[in-house]
């Protein structure tokens, strides 16, 4: 053994110190920009506002009039989610259909339609990116400005963003499944005559993927319930709008009841969605 070769200093130390320094150099401006100031929590004004609001939490508001309002808002939230996902389905299906490579004849070999097909798919992909790249809450805010307060804004917002999400995932599911039957249907040139795109989709691709497609849609419906509550905060109806009003009025009792109902609703949606998806499997 060669004593000189043994290190008496940590060879990793420089790398670690550099990383640490870099981390601090990044963290510092982040803290400044995000106005990280825990002391703000303990300023008397804020403490009083929060304390007053939290004190109002107990007891939760349970007057009959308010509960009636609550039930209506809850049904509205469920209806927004369901209607939104249904419209999203209508948006997503044709887009996914256009996106799916294995349905395209032009892709199989060089042909006159190839360029057109590629351009079309590129455009659809871009459209999907735009649809799901803008959060549903932003769409909701925009639609509230256009249509006024109420559930219509929430439904349209869900239709757009969830349409984009469903479209992308549907296309992925269809592509990742066994695409041979569909390709075969599209390629056969003599009798029986070459199948059309729609027929290839329905008979070639959908049967193998239907379970996954439905399962993902149900999962999205569950997410939509959460989203439709949240969208209420910008005025798109349902529980969220009620919650927003309660908070603006600093009415802790109502906020507490709404929060509890919301948590129960999410649990319920969770359970229904899990049950439905188990039935599928």
């Amino acid at each position, binding site marked *: *053994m060669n*004593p000189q070769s*043994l290190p*008496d200093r*940590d060879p*990793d130390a420089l790398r*670690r110190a550099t990383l*640490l320094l870099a981390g601090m150099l990044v963290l510092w401006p982040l803290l400044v920009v995000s106005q990280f100031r825990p002391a703000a929590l303990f300023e008397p004004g804020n403490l009083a506002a929060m304390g007053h609001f939290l004190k109002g939490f107990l007891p939760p508001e349970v007057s009959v009039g308010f509960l009636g309002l609550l039930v209506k808002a809850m049904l509205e939230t469920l209806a927004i989610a369901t209607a939104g996902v249904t419209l999203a389905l209508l948006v997503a299906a044709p887009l996914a259909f256009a996106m799916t490579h294995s349905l395209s004849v032009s892709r199989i070999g060089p042909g006159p339609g190839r360029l057109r097909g590629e351009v079309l798919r590129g455009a659809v992909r871009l459209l999907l990116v735009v649809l799901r790249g803008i959060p549903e809450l932003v769409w909701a805010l925009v639609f509230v400005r256009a249509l006024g307060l109420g559930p219509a804004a929430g439904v349209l917002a869900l239709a757009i963003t969830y349409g984009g999400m469903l479209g992308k995932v549907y296309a992925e599911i269809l592509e990742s499944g066994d695409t041979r039957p569909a390709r075969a249907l599209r390629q056969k040139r003599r009798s029986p005559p070459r199948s059309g795109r729609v027929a290839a989709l329905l008979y070639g691709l959908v049967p193998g993927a239907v379970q996954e497609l439905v399962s993902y849609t149900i999962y999205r419906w569950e997410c939509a319930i959460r989203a439709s509550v949240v969208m209420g905060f910008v005025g798109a109806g349902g529980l969220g709008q009620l919650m927003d009003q309660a908070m603006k009025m600093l009415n802790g009792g109502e906020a507490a009841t709404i929060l509890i109902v919301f948590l129960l609703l999410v649990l319920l949606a969770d359970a229904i969605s899990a049950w439905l998806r188990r039935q599928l499997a």
Partner: protein
Amino acid sequence: MGFRLQRLGLVHANGLRALAGVTLAARRGERIAVIGPSGAGKTTLLRLLGTAVRPSEGRVEVLESNPWQLSGGALRRLRTRIGTVHQAPPLPARQRVITAVLAGRLGTWPWWKSLLSLAYPADIAGACAQLARLDLADRLFDRCDRLSGGQLQRVGIARVLYQQPELILADEPVSAMDPALADLAIQQLIAEATGRGVTLIASLHAVDLALRWFPRIVGLRAGEVAFDLPPVRITDALLRDLYASESATLPTQGGEPLRLPQPGAEVAVRRPACQ
């Protein structure tokens, strides 16, 4: 006193009896080898001495105290004085050798020193010196998952040497090493015992190692002490009875035939090769 066990029994949670009526005591600085077939209870015995499991019956006394009557803090202080070499050293895969060795003193270092040591090793020279005794100093800054089984075992031994305990419990500490390295590792454990008056009890799968290096051999079979003798009084018949093997050869390090009896050897502490 190193330790004293009286009529000790242990039944595992699944109802399996691992030890029964074990009475065994060691003076301070004594060196004991425990041999016996697989499943005899060697590991269980050492875990019991290391206060990792509680006896079902009988009395345990380790380093002058009954661990199961101590408060939490006192038990922890007692544990800092006991070093265990595990058969398969339980080291996190991505940890470096130096960190694994320094962890031997976590019980005695103040907490801030332990934390700082994660940023920069608190005692490079100390860890290096212990690894050098085991011919492993060149892997000081390697990651543990880049070492072989035998090298990992040596890291485990270096951790215990670095811990500087008063009682060393070694559970088949050299089972993954070749004969030459095994001899070296056992030598270093024994040097530690004789040099600092540490009590050493090692379970060994190889009978030749036990006979060559230890002045006192305890045979364990089915959870009971079969014999407790100096090596010169160990006979072939005793061993064959212990391992219940008439025809097969007795287990040795490297598989060479066993020769009886063996004189003990003088040991010198290896000079560390680092500052």
